[in-house]
């Protein structure tokens, strides 16, 4: 088919004269993907837990607020959410703030936006897991805590949430894996994470196969590392006598 394989291209200095190699770009992309995944997962955990608690809180209003969040963030495609965070949010905020946002270093901007978009999108899924996890606890646990004089926030903090998190740990760690893949959408707003680097390499080297193969392998490697990590965490957090330990 007339393709000139040239794996050496990966080790060539980049055409932009920035003193890196193309492989270095890919590694940088891998680092960004990992950082983005971790940051977004933490945010998702935070947001998802907060709204999950709202949904489980014995108050119709709180439940409605949580449900609205879930509905909004689950029923709009991720890429649309990325675009809205990136293009719409600075425009609907007061002009001064919007202009300030736009003046931030672009690479920082897209990274932060990516964390927000992925975090809130995944948070909606985690919210539902937290809600279900709390609902699955025996109702006696809430009563037992209250009978000891715990206030509701203390009950959630010390009794319900710790149990809920142990139960939902497997889906929570899967979300980590899902975020690592969804993070590729960040390339659409210009973040040069792994998949963004793959495309940049195609542009600059005219050697599409080499860069795509390397980047795909990087994703598979990342996937395997995360799976191992998930197993490790799940083993660590298991309680004696529970969940088949």
């Amino acid at each position, binding site marked *: 088919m007339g393709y000139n394989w040239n794996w050496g291209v990966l080790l060539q200095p980049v055409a932009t004269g920035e003193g890196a190699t193309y492989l270095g770009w890919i590694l940088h992309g891998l680092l960004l993907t990992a950082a983005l995944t971790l940051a977004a997962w933490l945010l998702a955990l935070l947001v998802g837990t907060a709204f999950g608690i709202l949904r489980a809180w014995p108050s119709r209003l709180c439940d409605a607020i949580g449900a609205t969040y879930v509905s909004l963030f689950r029923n709009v*495609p991720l*890429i649309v959410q990325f675009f809205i965070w990136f293009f719409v949010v600075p*425009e609907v905020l007061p002009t001064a703030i919007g202009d300030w946002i736009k003046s931030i270093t672009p690479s920082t901007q897209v990274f932060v936006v990516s964390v927000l978009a992925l975090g809130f999108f995944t948070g909606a899924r985690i919210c539902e897991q937290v809600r279900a996890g709390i609902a699955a606890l025996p109702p006696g646990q809430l009563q037992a805590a209250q009978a000891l004089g715990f206030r509701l926030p203390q009950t959630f903090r010390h009794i319900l949430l710790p149990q809920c998190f142990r139960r939902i740990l497997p889906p929570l760690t899967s979300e980590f894996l899902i975020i690592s893949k969804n993070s590729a959408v960040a390339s659409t707003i210009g973040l040069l994470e792994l998949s963004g680097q793959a495309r940049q390499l195609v542009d600059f080297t005219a050697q599409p196969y080499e860069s795509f193969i390397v980047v795909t392998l990087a994703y598979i490697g990342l996937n395997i590392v995360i799976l191992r990590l998930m197993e490790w965490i799940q083993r660590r957090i298991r309680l004696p006598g529970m969940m088949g330990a």
Partner: protein
Amino acid sequence: MFALEWDTILAARSIIGAGIAVTLQVTLVAIVGGIAGGTVLAMLAVSGSRPLQLFSKYYVALFRAVPLVMLLLWFFLIVPQILRAVFGLSPSVDIRLVSAMVAFVLLESAFFAEIIRAGIIGLSKGQFHAAAALGMTRYQSMRYIILPQAFRAMLPIMMTQCIVIFQDTSLVYVISLGDFFRNTVSIGERDGTLVPMLLLAGAVYWAICSGLSGLVRFLQNRTAS
């Protein structure tokens, strides 16, 4: 900046319409192809043959490890000639649409395979034995006894997955395929109305998906009672 210019949207309705057509085509092909491929993979996974089981397992693992964005780019940038050869496409076919469809079918096959496999494993061993005891071959028991039950049990999850697919088709953006979302964005970029157009796109997706999720919940409750 925020005012939707309805007349420009109206003027662009053919572009938006073409986008919707693409979105629906990709969604439909992904669902039909994904369920077909997923069924085959699930059957391989529960077949007695070790190599087939491994094939199914690694297929699913591979396609679930690679981001959809990468998959779309692979088929669009890297291997369109393979698609052409495999499908015997005429040179004038828009390779982006075919790439998107193939990428989605391959990926969704992996997802549906997991769902259907869970449905099959959820059945008691007795059902397999009962079918076999009547003299049914492996294929016949799958076709007439096991799969109908597995599908029925997994219907809500499969329907939810279909909604996810509908949302995910918007990622064809990365291969410049003009689906509903991309065409909406293009109009916004062209007319300087990106903000309202993005909000419009979000609202349309939200309305459709929350409507469909509501429908799934309704059906679920009805079959449960």
